[in-house]
């Protein structure tokens, strides 16, 4: 079905509705279509003709913004161009990208535009395979791509054969094959993007444009050398010069690094002289990766114990991949704390403590070191033969305080294995835990097989 052929069939000065034109063409056997099909063709042709599009000047301005604007302008231009179909011409995409038509149908549509609209509509309605694919694409494939993990596969399966139809549509407008291929390519990715984003707003364009800045080299940031750093360096170097003889024998690695950096600035005129800092991934806002519930649960564990628990969660097979990545990042962040064994999880994150929770020991409970709020000195409990022992608070896997563990010098091993004595929160002896593995509470009396260390090891 050639557009040029159709155009010749349109009576000169045609001003009536598309439906009458479709009937006129059907009467001349341009295509064989039932009454219902003719109505559908006319309806689609009307939609194509009246589809809203940006005027050329506005589209040109927006494209200018897209190419030379800042990230915000780029995002806004992308969103506006995309939603108005400025680069998905209706004669390429067909009804799949039909925009809501304007209320009044363009009465001055030229013959070529009208003929093309009818040709596309007729092809979509009368070719059975194509109509079925359109129905699939707007139905099951659309749902699949938006909601199912492997939905993209289903979408591609239905969509790929239609891409060539877009090129055929463009060819019917008389464009070059290469241009037709490029338009079809643009239309294909645009339609898939529309389907993927579903009802998502303009946030995706904003996020996309902003995140693209991460791909840019950050050399520019490193090149900025602030003046106070240089002054401080000059003072440091002057001080070093005074003790020049000792520098090369006694300097530490940081001094060497600073001197090297200064030499690089002097020779190459670029670089920075600053103290090493942890990367931004380990910044002050590490806690933003954690839900409030998890924070409350682990607030009183020591940072090292919390890191261990988070690692366990991260490696759990039922943990979602994104969550796994967040937990691992947070665990890594905690391990970089200079006093990882002494501060609580919440202190390491620099946020207020959550309310303390308490539980009782239970046999087989895995315990983690915890930090009592406001208390730094160890608790004293009564060990074997009434001897005072220093205890450490421990918490259950759910983060609640359960009691204390102590290393009692008078009963420090059982069957040759080192043990901890376990005390409840009120200071009573509860049982023990092996000290050569992660502490797991076991019920038992101190006298049941406890032995003191051998005085002499037989060789």
């Amino acid at each position, binding site marked *: 079905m050639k557009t040029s052929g159709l155009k010749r069939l349109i009576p000169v000065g045609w001003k009536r509705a598309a439906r009458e034109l479709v009937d006129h063409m059907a009467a001349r056997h341009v295509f064989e279509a039932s009454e219902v099909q003719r109505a559908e063709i006319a309806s689609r042709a009307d939609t194509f003709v009246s589809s809203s599009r940006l005027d050329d000047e506005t589209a040109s301005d927006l494209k200018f913004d897209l190419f030379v604007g800042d990230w915000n302008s780029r995002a806004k231009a992308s969103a506006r161009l995309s939603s108005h179909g400025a680069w998905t011409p209706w004669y390429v995409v067909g009804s799949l990208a039909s925009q809501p038509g304007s209320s009044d149908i363009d009465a001055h549509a030229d013959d070529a535009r009208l003929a093309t609209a009818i040709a596309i509509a007729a092809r979509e309605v009368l070719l059975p395979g194509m109509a079925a694919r359109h129905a699939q694409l707007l139905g099951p494939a659309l749902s699949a791509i938006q909601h199912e993990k492997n939905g993209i596969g289903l979408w591609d399966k239905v969509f790929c054969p239609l891409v060539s139809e877009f090129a055929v549509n463009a060819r019917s407008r008389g464009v070059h094959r290469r241009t037709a291929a490029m338009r079809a390519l643009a239309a294909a990715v645009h339609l898939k993007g529309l389907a993927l984003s579903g009802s998502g707003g303009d946030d995706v364009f904003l996020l996309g444009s902003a995140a693209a*800045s991460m791909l840019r080299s950050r050399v520019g940031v490193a090149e900025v050398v602030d003046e106070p750093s240089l002054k401080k360096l000059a003072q440091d170097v002057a001080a070093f010069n005074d003790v020049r003889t000792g520098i090369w024998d006694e300097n530490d690695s940081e001094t060497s690094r600073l001197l090297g950096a200064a030499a690089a600035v002097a020779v190459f005129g670029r670089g920075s002289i600053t103290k090493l800092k942890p990367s931004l*991934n380990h910044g002050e806002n590490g806690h933003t990766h954690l839900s409030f519930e998890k924070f409350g649960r682990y607030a009183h564990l020591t940072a090292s114990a919390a890191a261990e628990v988070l690692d366990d969660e991260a490696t759990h097979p039922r943990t979602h991949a994104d969550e796994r990545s967040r937990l691992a990042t947070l665990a890594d962040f905690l391990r970089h704390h200079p006093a990882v064994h002494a501060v609580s999880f919440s202190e390491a994150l620099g946020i207020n403590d959550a309310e303390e929770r308490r539980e009782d020991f239970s046999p087989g409970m895995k315990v983690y070191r915890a930090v009592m709020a406001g208390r730094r000195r160890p608790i004293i409990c009564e060990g074997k033969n009434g001897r005072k022992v220093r205890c450490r608070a421990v918490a259950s896997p759910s983060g609640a305080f359960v009691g204390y563990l102590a290393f009692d010098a008078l009963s420090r091993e059982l069957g040759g294995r080192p043990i901890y004595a376990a005390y409840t929160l009120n200071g009573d002896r509860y049982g023990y835990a092996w000290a050569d593995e992660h502490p797991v509470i076991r019920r038992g009396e101190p006298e049941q097989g406890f032995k003191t260390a051998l005085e002499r090891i037989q060789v």
Partner: protein
Amino acid sequence: MEDLPGVSAFAHDPVRAYVEALLSKAGFAHAPEAERAETVAALTAEAQRRIGLELTEAIDPYSLKEFRAMAEVGAGEDELAAFFDVRVPDAEARVRRALDSFGRECLEHAARLRGQLHL
């Protein structure tokens, strides 16, 4: 499948630079300038959308709210890069993954179209 082009770290807009390289890989390097610019614009906007969709899955609602506030006050690109570093796990890897996936999709479509149109 042809190799994907690299991402230029020094371009004003790395996404646009990537799309231009992608079009060259797809065999449209010598297309008429106006038509090429039209397609570059279309694909650049689409690539932005794909990156945005990838990040939407990873960013938490609180951070998204904060991001909107930053967008409103016109935060700088370096500030945003730092924001994504901290607030979105593996943000840069996600961006690159989204671009790779988009690039593969474009090259596949282009190869199919070139075959069908005997280019």
